[in-house]
């Protein structure tokens, strides 16, 4: 039990889902009492690995060995892993807003006296735990009445109440502001000095550099390397290199951009969070799009890419504060989605199934749904025209379906995405905003979608592509903007953009963003 020995070892963990290898032979070792960071791009397999460890994926559903505290461990449920002293705090906090802090801390682990709850003990113990995480709130305060930063601390207090030996924090600071984040990191430091081992998953590399003792980098489901921060003198650049150091795998169709004049401009766009009015989701964002140009937007999760696009698309997200939209030299006021569609703007959502499609509908009805007025006579839908339009797009986009009468729920992800694209191409937009256009679809369909995007640009339309996959942005875009914490931190031409330079701008906080010179040529 000396400090520095290995508390957890995971060896050759392989986890397959039908058709996809999410983890292949991942190994890592965590030393007792350290803070161990796991870094990797979106989708690299970090969360899957933690789910394997905590028993969300039960033992037997993966191969490989887990040794915890010197004993082979394979947990069947989260309860098992918690019993052994492993507690995971997810990014989406699992607290019940209407219950008090104390009730949340002891949820499922209630302090009892016989059959009734021992409120005196509950309060006293909760107060004690809150003191340990430096939170000075009345334990009887309801969760909904405290901020996200404090909620995060309540989660940690809850973990401590379970006699935690290994605490896993998944993106703990993603939703926090700078000072709350710093406070959380101090608490983590304090827990480390009390001997609690911690694993942190984070995209904020500066924080990792500041707090972590070791870093395991995961890329494409494989563990690439484990770095010792002090011994190896690791800095952000070193981490970025590990995270993105791969060849461009996805291929892109041949494409020669023909870029025309600027026709769409956004100036000083400021948007407030819809509920938390103290938070800006777009901070004075300005950008422009030229005809025939594919403009990429890079940013980490929660950076505010989707928020920016949706607020432009008829203010369908957040509360608009100020800023201008200029299209073809004219100022636009798009107060709702129909107005945006009327202005020939299309927005393909990142979340196909919950925001993009009515899964009860069929292909033909979906195809025409964004601008029904194009095929109506009076108020009546012309079903002949509807069928013809749907059939035309099915052929053009090569959607694989027996007929346009097929329900969209039966299609594969790639074909669903094509139907969504068809729906927006049907409106014949001048500006197309594509939010994560290839999320969750296979390589072949991706290639086809890239081709479609390039064809649209060749027709003189402006295309905005928001993506979490840097290789995709690099392969597709003529110009790439980076967003960090709601602010546009840079703009790189295709020639100057690399994964490293983008990643740096994506993780740059606003103040340092000024150093990056946008090359708006």
């Amino acid at each position, binding site marked *: 039990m000396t400090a520095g020995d290995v508390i957890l070892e995971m060896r050759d963990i392989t986890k397959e*889902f*039908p*058709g*996809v290898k*999410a983890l292949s032979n991942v190994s890592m070792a965590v030393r007792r009492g350290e803070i161990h960071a796991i870094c990797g*791009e*979106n*989708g*690299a*397999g970090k*969360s*899957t690995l933690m*789910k394997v460890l905590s028993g*969300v*994926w*039960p033992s037997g*559903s993966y191969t490989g060995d887990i040794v915890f505290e010197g004993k082979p461990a394979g947990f069947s*449920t989260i309860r098992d892993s918690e019993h052994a002293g492993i507690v995971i705090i997810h990014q989406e906090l699992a607290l019940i807003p209407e219950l008090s802090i104390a009730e949340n801390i002891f949820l499922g682990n209630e302090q009892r006296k016989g059959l009734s709850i021992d409120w005196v003990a509950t309060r006293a113990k909760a107060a004690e735990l809150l003191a340990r995480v430096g939170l000075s709130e009345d334990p009887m305060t309801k969760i909904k009445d405290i901020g996200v930063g404090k909620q995060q601390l309540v989660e940690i207090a809850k973990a401590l109440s379970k006699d935690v030996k290994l605490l896993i924090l998944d993106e703990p600071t993603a939703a926090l502001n700078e000072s709350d984040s710093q406070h959380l990191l101090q608490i983590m430091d304090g827990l480390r000095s009390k001997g609690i081992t911690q694993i942190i998953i984070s995209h904020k590399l500066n924080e990792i550099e500041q707090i972590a003792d070791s870093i395991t980098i995961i890329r494409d489901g494989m563990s690439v390397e484990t770095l010792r921060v002090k011994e190896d003198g690791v800095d952000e650049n070193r981490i970025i290199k590990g995270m993105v150091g791969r060849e461009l795998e996805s291929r892109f169709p041949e494409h020669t951009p023909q870029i025309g004049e600027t026709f769409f401009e956004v100036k000083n766009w400021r948007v407030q969070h819809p509920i938390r009015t103290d938070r800006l989701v777009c901070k004075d964002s300005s950008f422009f799009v030229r005809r025939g140009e594919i403009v990429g937007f890079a940013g980490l*999760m*929660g950076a505010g*890419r*989707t*928020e920016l696009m949706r607020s432009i*698309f008829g203010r369908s997200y957040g509360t608009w504060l100020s800023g201008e939209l200029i299209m073809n030299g004219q100022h636009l006021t798009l107060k*709702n*989605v*129909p107005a*945006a*569609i009327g202005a020939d703007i299309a927005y393909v*959502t*990142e*979340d196909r*199934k*919950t*925001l*993009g*499609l*009515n*899964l*009860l*509908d069929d292909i033909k*009805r979906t195809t025409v*749904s*964004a*601008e*029904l007025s194009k095929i*109506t006579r009076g*108020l*009546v*839908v012309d079903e*002949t025209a509807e069928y*013809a339009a749907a059939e035309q797009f099915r052929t053009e986009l090569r959607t694989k379906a027996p*007929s346009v*009468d097929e*329900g969209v*729920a*039966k299609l594969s992800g790639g074909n669903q995405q094509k139907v969504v694209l068809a729906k927006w191409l049907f409106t014949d937009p001048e500006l197309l905003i594509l939010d*994560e256009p290839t*999320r*969750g679809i296979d390589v072949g369909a991706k290639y086809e979608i890239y081709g479609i995007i390039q064809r649209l640009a060749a027709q003189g339309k402006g295309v905005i592509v928001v993506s979490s996959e840097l290789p995709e942005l690099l392969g597709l875009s003529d110009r790439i903007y980076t967003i960090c914490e709601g602010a546009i931190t840079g703009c790189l031409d295709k020639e100057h953009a690399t994964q490293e330079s983008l990643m740096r701008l994506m993780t740059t906080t606003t103040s340092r963003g000024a150093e990056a010179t946008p090359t708006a040529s």
Partner: protein
Amino acid sequence: MDFIKKLFGGDIRQLGMIGALVFLILFFQWSTDGLTLTPDNLNNIIRGNAHILVLAIGMVLVIIAGHIDLSVGSVAASVGILVALAMRDWGLNWFLGILLGLAFGALIGAWQGWWTAYVGIPAFIVTLAGMLFFRGLNQFIGKSNTIPVPEEFQTIGGGSLPEVGPDTGYNNLTVLLGLIGCAVIVLGALRGRARLVKIGADVESPAVMWTRLALICLVIMGAMLLIASGTKGFPVSGLILVALVLFYGFLTSKTVLGRHIYAVGGNRHAAELSGVQSKKINFFVMANMSVLAALAGMMFVARSRASGPFDGVGWELDAIAAVFIGGAAVTGGVGTVVGSIVGGLVMAVLNNGLQLESIGADRTQMIKGMVLLIAVAFDLYSKKQGKPSLIGRLMDGAKGSRAATQPDQNPAEAEVTPTTDTIRTEN
């Protein structure tokens, strides 16, 4: 079996519903020794249930859009008493009375629609409040008394098509109505087929189409001739119902408004991001429901010749039951006007048959309850057979709990899990 399936558009659900209706009619015809299929009894079934079927038309729109309306019985009662009072005390004629009733219904509908659509209170609550309020209003206006209505007004509930032209032994207008109905259905089918051919879509074989048309026409003409041979012609309330079915059937399947109602019920967020103004749609369906409730109330008052303090009690439940038996989904986005009418007819025939057999109200209610449950269970089962969409939706809903217990046996996880990192929404 394959042929039969094609005959009904391959839709097991519809087949089941129509089959159940036919079975019920034949069963009662046998068990009541031929009392079911008599001119007077058919006439009674239509007269006695037209108001519920009118409600079912409005209710299916409400349910497709993802809401519910519990207030329809009370709204119908309020409108009924106001109209009766206006005609007795203020001297309004029957026509102005009907207009007043519809206007009052529209006003109530605008009230409930506003709370639902623009304030955002769930329709369940808004209409629960309406159920209490308008029941009280009925008794307040009528001082808990019964108010009779004039004879002209009674036509919309109790009237029949008059005898016109030569004496053929049948009610001529009723026969004519049947013939027009058949002609419209045949022409409609042929036009639809021609359209499909024109755009090069798959069409069913002529044999299937003509068999189906022949069957439908046979049923229509059979029923109409049977009614026409009786003492009274086809009921006026039935005529109103047919007109409404045609109108709302067209509205839901062919118009922009109809599309938008399904879109809002199917996925409100996706609809909004496609430019559908969901508040307006929600307002419309709620307002429309109250107008139809007003009409139903007046039809009932006309038939019972007076408006009373307990008119309309329990109607909302009958209408909702009809809609769900007719294949609508509780979660919205699914349902048809014709399906709801068939659902309503199943209940009506059941009621009628049990009455003819002198089975008491107690057992009738027990049987109706079980029929509703079994019909929806069958519906769920047939959807699982034919439509993976629903299973997909169920699995999406159960994802969290499933993930912990049996991850690898669930192929639907494949799409979701490997990208857990990226799937988290950014908002």
